[in-house]
């Protein structure tokens, strides 16, 4: 099953790269530059996963994460971090229900395999939830 992924990053080259990497892995991808635009989109459209850079121009990643969890609590949000990211900020995202982290400082192969692993864990949990009432 092909997951719908929304990528939020304020740099075009990064968006293009993620677009190509994810498409290569057969994900359906939409890329957007700001948190504000992303929230508008999420209101009207369902995404399985949001890849969200913590540092954004305008609203920062933590605020966007909080809003997403208000609008669509079931959306899986994975934060993108990198070298020198504010560690206090990263710690906060944990409280607001982010499902995992991908670091721009990791090798690409590791980023992709981590991404797939997150998706799988989340799927397994979902299946667990669905199965539970019937057990």
């Amino acid at each position, binding site marked *: 099953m092909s997951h719908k992924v929304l990528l939020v990053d304020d*740099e075009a*080259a*990064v968006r293009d*790269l*993620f677009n*190509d*990497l994810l498409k*290569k892995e057969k994900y359906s991808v939409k890329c957007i530059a700001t948190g504000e635009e992303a929230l508008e989109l999420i209101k009207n459209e369902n995404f399985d996963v949001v890849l969200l850079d913590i*540092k954004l121009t305008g609203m920062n990643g933590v605020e966007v994460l909080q809003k997403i969890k208000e609008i669509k609590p079931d959306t899986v949000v994975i934060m993108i971090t*990198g*070298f*020198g*990211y504010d*560690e206090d900020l990263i*710690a906060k995202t944990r409280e607001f229900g982010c499902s995992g982290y991908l670091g*721009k*400082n990791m*090798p*690409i*192969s590791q980023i992709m395999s981590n991404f797939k692993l997150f998706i799988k864990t989340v799927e397994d949990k979902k299946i667990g939830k669905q199965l539970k009432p019937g057990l």
Partner: protein
Amino acid sequence: MNISIDGKDKLCHKLLDNASMLIFFINSEGNIVISNKMMEAITSKSKEDILGKNWLNVLYRDSNTPIKQQMFRAVMENTMTYKRANNFQEVIVDDHNGEKIISWSITPILSESQDLEGVLFAGNDITDLRKREESLKKIDDTLKNIFSSIKDYALYVTNLDGNITYYGMGAEAMFGWQKNEIIFQNLSLLNPEEVLKSKLPFLLEQVRQKGKYELEIDMLKKDKQSLPVILSVNQFLDIEGKLSGYIFIAKDITEKKKLEYQIFQAEKLAAIGQLVAGIAHEINNPLFVISGRLELLLSKKRLAGKEREALDIINSQASRIRNLVDRFLRFSRKGILKIEVINLNEAIDNVLPLLAYHNLHTCKINIEKDLEKNLPLIKGDLNQLQEVFINLLLNAYQAMPEGGSIRITTAKISERFLEIRISDTGSGITQGNLKNLFMPFFTTKKEGTGLGLSICYNIIKNHEGSIDIETQVNEGTTFFIRLPFIQ
């Protein structure tokens, strides 16, 4: 002017009475024959009570002072016997107003046939003079005492040639030279050559022009160790106000310097940390895009061998940048510590086997451990602290390419801190390198990144501890790590 004999006699008495000295003359029986007004004034006796009376009874009001009387009598008898003049000072003459100190000159008066006719006493009242001298001496003693008691400052005085004329106890304590070793020696004993050549002449020139001057300089102790001081120099003027030397007051500022250096170092490292974090952050996106695009290119099946090879090289160089930035960041990171309760003795024991994984030379290195039993526990990040120990131990190994020994000790050193010492018997660190030791990117090793010790410094700082170093070229180096323990 003709004066009659009688007139001469009168004139003589007049002269005697107007003299500001005590004058009297005794015959060979010791009775006073001639005396002047000053005698009456000093002894508070009338002419009748003086003339014809035994001189000692006149001079001393009572017999409370037999020893003084005996001494004076002995001097007088010596004068009579040997017919020789004598001086006798500090005879105390009692009078109603108290004691007087008189400086006497005692002269035998001889007849033409050299027979003794009597003895002439002439005395100066030096009571006030002596009192002044005594109070001056008291002031002098007090001043000497004050100067000697100053221990925080080294006080010394030189003449114009720079030879030391005064050297206080504070100076003894500060420089290690004892007073008797250095007095009248030249100032050059206390100053290193470069100071003697440039700073000291400048300093003294300023003192000559402005009266005083102050400078931070390095001085030299007896053991040839350098000592940072604030040296303040004043002109030393003689009674006529002429420059006769220099007064030096030196204050030891070793501790201040140390503290200043630590603050400077901490600020510098913090600034570099910020810079590194900023740069690292800016590297994220471009490096990520480069690596990602490379990955995509490499995943294409139809690539010529040469092209693939080139891309592989680019890829490995990119990951080198990534690793480097990662290390920089570990230095700059304020760091979220994974805090746990740690027994440092165990932590050290567990680190030692890890050394085997590093590429160490095979020369014989002894590791001695002296770990304090019942060492208090600390709170900290075990991985990070072990990284510090590994770093220091590896440095110690590398400082001893010909072999040697490493000594690790732990001990509680105060009510708050415990200390880990790691000493080696290696090549030591030169003063020049010591300054930059904890600076990131500073390395003396061919293959070093210069981050090891700066990371150690940061880790220990994040644990609210301190890291210090003592080193001697060709003798070895000791690192002191102090960490607060759980109360």
